[in-house]
């Protein structure tokens, strides 16, 4: 009996924990996935069953219906940008809202594309569709990185905070600076270049790829190695100390850059998702007005 009740308590706790950690993707037992999937299925089925002559297009009654649903969804989905600024719990919680945002957003692939009747071209109408797809695809990327990267981020940080990372780098720099004092000028300059380079510099490209071909620390280490490599270390050459310190800084930088890369991946999609959404709203307005302007 005792074992059973313990087990029950444990199961209950696990359930509660699972609920606590239930992300927006799994919210409410995939409630919005089911709603969105049902909506897509209904739309696809009706698209196939409804006979529109001469062929499906946005201007048929069915096309107008899909278009109206699409616009409504887009406006509501955009409202997440305002809604997210207020965190509330419950059925209308931000989590529920985000879950619906994700799954209903995905359903727009079906609704929006069937609204076009697959009549695409170089015009404002297709521009609106293309922007919508861009927003959705960037959103899918965002969800993918949100699902995959936080783990990698945490592993890489190794329980260090960002402040600690910066402090470690600073300590490293100070030590290198002190250790390099006895060096002849030529070598001192090489070491100085490592100190002067901004570890947080580099372009968005460097951040996203994690490739820093112009890394001064790597260059300094290579230069120092040219001397320290072939010679024996008796512990009395200041260059040997600089060598060791530069190597440690290099390792530190590698971790920092991996951290920056993961963070950049988590952020970069929003730089497409948000402006493309606003551009989509503009294109949508142009699309709707132009359709009725030249009717």
């Amino acid at each position, binding site marked *: 009996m005792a074992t059973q009740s313990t087990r029950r308590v444990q199961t209950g706790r696990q359930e509660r924990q699972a609920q606590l950690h239930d992300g927006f993707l799994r919210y409410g037992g995939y409630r919005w996935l089911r709603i969105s999937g049902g909506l897509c299925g209904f739309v696809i089925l009706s698209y196939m069953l*409804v*006979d529109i*002559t*001469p062929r499906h297009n946005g201007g048929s*009654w069915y096309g*107008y*219906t899909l278009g109206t649903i699409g616009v409504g969804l887009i406006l509501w989905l955009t409202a997440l940008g305002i809604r997210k600024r207020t965190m509330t719990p419950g059925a209308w919680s931000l989590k529920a809202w985000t879950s619906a945002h994700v799954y209903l957003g995905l359903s727009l692939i079906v609704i929006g594309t069937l609204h076009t009747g697959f*009549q695409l*071209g170089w*015009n*404002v*109408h297709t*521009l609106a569709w293309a922007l919508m797809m861009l927003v959705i695809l960037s959103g899918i990327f965002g969800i993918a990185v949100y699902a995959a990267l936080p783990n990698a981020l945490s592993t890489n940080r190794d329980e260090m905070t*960002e402040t600690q990372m*910066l402090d470690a*780098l*600073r300590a490293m*720099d*100070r030590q*290198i*600076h*002190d250790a*390099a*004092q006895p*060096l*002849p*000028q030529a070598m*001192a300059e090489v*070491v*100085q270049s490592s*100190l002067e*380079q*901004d*570890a*947080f510099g580099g*372009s*968005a490209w460097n*951040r996203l790829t994690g490739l820093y071909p112009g890394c001064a620390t790597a260059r300094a280490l290579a230069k120092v190695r040219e001397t320290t490599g072939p010679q024996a270390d008796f512990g009395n050459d200041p260059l040997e100390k600089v060598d060791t310190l530069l190597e440690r800084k290099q390792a530190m930088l590698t971790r920092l850059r991996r*951290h*920056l890369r993961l*963070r*950049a991946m988590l952020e*970069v999609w929003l*730089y497409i998702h*948000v*402006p*493309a*959404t*606003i*551009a989509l709203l*503009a*294109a949508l*307005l*142009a699309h709707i*007005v*132009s*359709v009725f*302007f*030249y*009717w």
Partner: protein
Amino acid sequence: MAFLIRTITITADGREIIRDRRVEKPQISVGRAAERDIHLQDLAVEPDHARIEQIDERRVLVRSVGTLGFTVDGKVSGRSEIDAAVGAEIGLGGHRITVGREGDAVTLTIKREAAVSDAVGEKDEAEIFSLKGKLLGKRPVAWALAVLILVLLLAVPMVTFALRPAPDNPKLASHVVGDKAWSPGKLSTAHHALEGNCEACHVKAFQSVRDESCKACHADAHDHAPATRIAGARETPGLGGLLLQGVAHAFGKPGPGACVDCHREHEGEGAMPPTPQKFCADCHGTLKDRLTDTKLGDASDFSDAHPEFRPLVAVKPGVPGGHPTFERISLADKPQDLNGLKFPHGLHLSATNGVAKMARTLQVEQGYGDALVCKDCHTPTADGVRFQPVDMEKDCQSCHSLAFDQIGGTFRTLRHGKPDQVEAELRAFYRTTDPVAPMELGGATRRRPGLYAQGQVYNAFFGAGVVRPARAEDAIAKAFSPKGVCGECHVVAPPGTNGARGWQVAPVHQTARFFESGWFSHEAHKTEKCESCHNAPRSAKASDLLLPDLKSCRTCHGGEGSKAKVATGCALCHNYHIDDGAPWLVTRKVAQAGSDRGRQRP
């Protein structure tokens, strides 16, 4: 001569610590090496970087020892004289040495300005770890894109549309800028010239294309039926259709029945797609429910919802001097076409009877085969669509000769189509010719007088000569009799009928087009044998209507989208804008085939 070296260091909590040191030397050394008088822990400073020496009580000379220089008041220099009373700032790597004077000594105030490394300098942690500043901001990009789209793709076309000059001619070049981006698809070939000239059809803002715009060019389009009939014929739309109609009316769209309802544009390059049968079926599918007085049968699909054909047939033959009476009768009622002829098709197409024997006799002269075939008498029209009327002189007379006399090698023939002339010819013939002279009257033999007696040869010959003109009436009656040269093919009325003086022949009517509302082209069916549709070999009467019925056509033709050999929408046989010509779809196909053939030619 002395230097007062004042070193300012800053503690972690920001306090300044000032240390003074007096050096009683005329010259001091500056560098990174520990043994220098001024020892600067700065990797940008050489171990032995510079010397500072006093020239006199006021002036000092600064000169660099190594390859790196220094700055004096921001200016790069390798050697510089400084008036200590005036003062100056020397920059060496990340350090600043301010030169001044205090009492008898020259003061050198040393302070580290630059951080040991970039990382050690001030950093905004909230920003440096994020992408902020690495990419164009979300907000400016969003605004820029939105404004760009709204201006270029919305405002510019709308404003230029509003400001365009009034068009004298709708076909003239466009004045609206940027509206090409509004076009949802290319125009069809027929309207290709209007591409980019949107306002030629879209005349008013927020008003759909009106029929008037179409009629500006297509002035000759026939109406399908009176507008009131069409309005009464139209089926009440379903829920979806009502919704669309509601939206359409709210935005001032014309119709139903507007040109654009059927003629959809912007569906891509190439010919405009033919109107689908649904557009016809909307009314004609259940037309009788609404237009109860219509003579038309309901039709919505050729495969299974099309009434039997109703050809135009002569129900009453024409009497001499009058026309036959025509009526459209369904083939289901097995109508007879009383065309005024007596002509058994079967007899003429037999391969074994006298007709076939005659054909073989005339094989070389007339180009017949072993028996007669359809083309021996029926000649297609130039376009191949229908057949020319059968012509007695050309098509029948090679067998049915009207010759009655021979003069030398030339045959005299009766005039076809002129019964009174036939009578006159025969009378004249008997009046001007003698009976055939008996054999005994020939030669130079002397004859005895007794031959004039009753029953003798002279008496017989001259007696016949006296009554010969009266024999013409017999010949005429024989020609017009049912077995005679006229009566064997024609319906004939004897003199006195309807008060006429002479013999009369009933008019013959050969119908060129039986289906008035549908289009049929023999040219399009020339891969078929005549007999596969027309059962002529088994026909015994001229009045047999040898037209194939609906079932016969359905062996190849099915409705639009059916699996039949030829899937056929309404537009293949019927014209919406009814006229006598071929349906638009057919003319287009013929034109296309023509241009394809033209292309194939070298």
